[in-house]
């Protein structure tokens, strides 16, 4: 009996595969053994079932014998299941009425005793007959696609992904939490391995994004919540009040001049100051001022109100409110980037105590022509040009005991760059790098590092520094050179720590909202480390840039483009097809215990609080069957792999 209560007419086709099967399994006997098995209408064997004539034979026999289901006993289903599904479909049979009995990889190729192998083949085929007897005809689940993407994070990865998707012709919403797009790359001075100026290559992209007709730029916005599923997400977005109307602001800067509130400047990594009303950096996009409410004296005119008074074009509006709005999108690219591990984790290097012990990004700002020192290397404490700079690699990385176990991948390169740029700026200075290994896996990377050593005479010392401390204005570094076996002590005017890259601060919160998987270190997890590196395990989410793990700019951009291409794949489909072998619920049997809800890895099951039964979102269900195994009442049965099917198959295998 099949799922519809009708009697089935099954055809069994046993393949010889030349001698591959037939030399061990007596295929004729297998076909014979099945002839009179309940449900089997017709049984035969043939030399090459997947060949033209083989396929034709199946087609003809289906018509001739009026078959409604087919078993092909041949090679593994991974090889030819699709082929034979096409054949039966041509004959007008639903592809879910075809099953493959694997008698080659799992029988004739692994056994040599003909008797036993033949008996095993019979059992295998019978078990598939039992399965097909209860198979239902299924149609793939179809849903529409909203051809509009959300990109979260406006660093180089987000910009590249947004531009590529928009160039494919789809609309993009780009959400950036900060007042400007640009991310960390816009803070960099010059970039390895070519030493081109970061701002020079970044600014045109930022402008392009802001002008692209298909991109809606939402800076100073954050994602509140995401619901729905691939192709059909609903996203709530929160607009944070900027208190300045970008369309009216003329960038005159008058407000900034009168603002009495001086705070440390994030863009310059706290090495300089800005006002409470500010533009993060001159090339910021959108080009507008932002009033930073956390540092403003208060928006009431009695508290201050100076900026509003001087603003001629009336761009400042103290009454602006936070807004939350909802948008529909079909795909989401997560490109929220990274942060640096904070130096207070490393008490032995002074924590945050010493002004002249800097992290890599701080040193980028010092090197940058647009930075607080105008590109002249000066140390923060007294503005002197440092003559001895010590760089320490692997700070907080590769430390399974106290910090982060992974290699941050780019710090070897940026340290070489730092030492090199320092030498270019201060030719009579000395640059010393303490390292454990120098990792330069990238095109033209090792040549770059060797240039630092050979041309710029940067001294590389192999050994991890134990301690950095200051006495008076001398900074002392305790290291070791493991190559000569000497413990070394060095005096430095400035120390730069290659702090490890870590997941974005507060990133967990967003990821919880998105419900997407991360690895043990908080980086986004890819669906497959080699074959699906830019997709999340959760359908419809794509990964770009350092949110997925430490990366340099070339790799970030490549991944962003790949993510955009994947979004393009998704949007190119007329509708989304989803495997129908899911686990629905039989509401009559469901007791509402909710056990299945807790085992589902995809959140596909939800308890209906009123009806006290579970509801299943067929699109989210990936058909793993974990819930079916967990359900105590039999209400959760997997399509075409029900408990009864499994029981019948087991019985056929053991009794057959």
């Amino acid at each position, binding site marked *: 009996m099949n799922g519809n209560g009708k009697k089935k007419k099954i055809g069994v086709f046993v393949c010889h595969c030349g001698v591959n099967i037939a030399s061990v399994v007596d295929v004729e006997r297998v076909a014979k053994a099945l002839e009179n098995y309940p449900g089997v209408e017709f049984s035969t064997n043939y030399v090459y079932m997947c060949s033209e004539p083989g396929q034709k034979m199946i087609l003809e026999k289906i018509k001739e014998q009026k078959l409604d289901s087919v078993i092909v006993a041949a090679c593994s289903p991974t090889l030819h299941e699709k082929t034979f599904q096409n054949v039966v479909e041509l004959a007008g049979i639903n592809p879910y009425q075809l099953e493959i009995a694997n008698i080659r990889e799992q029988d004739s190729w692994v056994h040599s005793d003909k008797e036993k192998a033949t008996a095993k083949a019979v059992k295998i085929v019978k078990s598939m007959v039992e399965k097909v007897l209860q198979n239902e005809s299924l149609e793939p689940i179809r849903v529409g696609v909203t051809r509009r993407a959300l990109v979260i994070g406006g660093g180089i990865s987000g910009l590249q992904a947004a531009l590529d998707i928009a160039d494919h012709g789809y609309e993009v919403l780009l959400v950036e939490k900060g007042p400007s797009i640009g991310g960390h790359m816009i803070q960099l001075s010059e970039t390895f391995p070519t030493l081109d100026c970061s701002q020079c290559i970044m600014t045109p992209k930022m402008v392009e994004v802001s002008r692209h007709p298909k991109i809606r730029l939402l800076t100073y916005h954050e994602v509140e919540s995401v619901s729905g599923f691939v192709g059909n997400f609903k996203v709530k977005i929160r607009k944070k009040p900027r208190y300045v109307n970008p369309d009216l602001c003329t960038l005159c800067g008058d407000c900034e001049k009168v603002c009495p509130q001086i705070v440390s400047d994030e863009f310059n990594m706290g090495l300089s100051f800005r006002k409470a009303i500010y533009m993060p950096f001159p090339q910021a996009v959108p080009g507008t001022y932002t009033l930073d409410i956390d540092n403003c004296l208060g928006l009431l005119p009695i508290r201050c109100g100076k900026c509003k008074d001087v603003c001629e074009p009336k761009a400042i509006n103290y009454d602006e409110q936070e807004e939350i709005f909802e948008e529909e999108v079909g795909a989401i690219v997560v490109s929220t980037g990274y942060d640096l591990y904070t130096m*207070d984790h*490393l*008490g*032995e290097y002074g*924590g945050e105590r010493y002004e002249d012990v800097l992290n890599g990004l701080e040193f980028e700002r010092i090197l940058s022509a647009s930075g607080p020192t105008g590109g002249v290397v000066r140390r923060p404490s007294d503005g002197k040009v440092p003559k001895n700079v010590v760089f320490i690699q692997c700070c907080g990385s590769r430390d399974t005991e*106290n910090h982060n176990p992974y290699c941050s991948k780019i710090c070897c390169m940026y340290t070489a760059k730092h030492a090199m740029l320092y030498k270019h700026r201060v030719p009579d200075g000395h640059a010393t790098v303490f390292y454990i290994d120098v990792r330069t896996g990238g095109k033209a990377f090792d040549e770059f590092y060797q240039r630092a050593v050979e041309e710029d005479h940067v001294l590389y010392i192999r050994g991890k520094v134990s*301690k950095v*401390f*200051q*006495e*008076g204005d001398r900074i*002392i570094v305790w290291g070791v050179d493991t190559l000569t076996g000497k413990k070394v002590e060095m005096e430095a005017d400035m120390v730069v720590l290659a702090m490890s890259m870590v997941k974005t601060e507060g990133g967990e919160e967003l990821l919880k909202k998105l419900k997407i998987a991360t690895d043990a270190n908080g980086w986004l997890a890819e669906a497959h480390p080699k074959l699906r590196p830019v997709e999340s395990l959760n359908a419809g989410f794509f990964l770009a840039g350092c949110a997925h793990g430490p990366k340099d700019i070339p790799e970030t951009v490549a991944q962003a483009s790949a993510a955009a291409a994947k979004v393009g794949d998704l949007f190119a489909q007329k509708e989304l097809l989803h495997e129908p072998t899911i686990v629905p619920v039989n509401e009559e049997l469901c007791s509402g215990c909710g056990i299945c809800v807790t085992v589902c890895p995809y959140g596909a099951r939800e308890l209906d609080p009123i009806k006290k039964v579970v509801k299943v979102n067929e699109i989210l269900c990936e058909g793993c069957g974990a819930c079916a195994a967990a359900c105590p009442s039999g209400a959760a049965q997997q399509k075409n792999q029900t408990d009864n099917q499994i029981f019948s198959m087991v019985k056929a295998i053991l009794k057959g």
Partner: protein
Amino acid sequence: MKLHYYPGCTLKEKTTNLDDSTRAAMEVLGYELVEPENWTCCGAEFPLTEEKIVGLAAPTRILRQVELEGGDKVVTTCAFCFNVLKRTNEALLKDPLKHKRINAYLRDDIKIDPLTKKKTTDFAEYHETVWVLHLMEFIKYQIGYDKVKSHIKRDLANLKVAPYYGCRLLRPAGEVGIDIPDDPHIFEEFLENIGCEVVDFPFKQECCGSYISVSLPDAASEASYQILRSARYCGADMLALSCPLCYYNLDRRQDRIKERFFDFTGMPILFFTQLLALALGVDEKVLGLDQHYYDPRPVLSKMHKTEVVS
């Protein structure tokens, strides 16, 4: 209030003035320090290999005695004793098998009944109920700085004191530390709260030479020299510490340091409870300041002029 206190051999036999200071100071704060009866040396060094596990028997006996006397905690001031007792406790707690093996050693002990003073061979196990605390921890977490402050009788504000942790209070990390090994604060907090001006210096957690001062005195004196030099360079009048071994290396051995390092000018060393006792108004005689190699009294006289009356 009675509080179990393990002084350790050195404080008991050699540097008794440090022990006296501790008792006097704690008395002001309302605590009577009682020693577990018949205590022995803790062994000074925690055995670092599994084969030397017998070394855990002595410290376990001390803990068991505290337990038998109904104590739930024991405080120490010597960093070495603290290190051994605390690690023994943790090791037994972590490893039930080890705990069993040590209890088996203790099985052969002869017990002296505290009432009748009779010897019995009744065996008592140690049940892991005693909490090992350094006095500095006890002051911070159990007494509270506010209470200490309310008892202060002398103003130490003129004293620039550098806190010296050494190794045994902070390391091994994760096993013993009374604070984060490379970013500790508890000693500074203690000194601040008893009114000293705290001087930070980068050698506060460097080793003074420890027992190497016996086997290779020059190596140890160089280590000690660096500590004292740095504290002086950073502006300290004196060094405060919490270990009689460090005290020996840093005070008594200054003669040797002077012989080797001509720029060395000397530096007074005080035990942290001596400073506490001073702040709490304890009679100076109790502190045995005359027993120091480097006489701290001239520097201390700076503070004498500023008595607080309350």
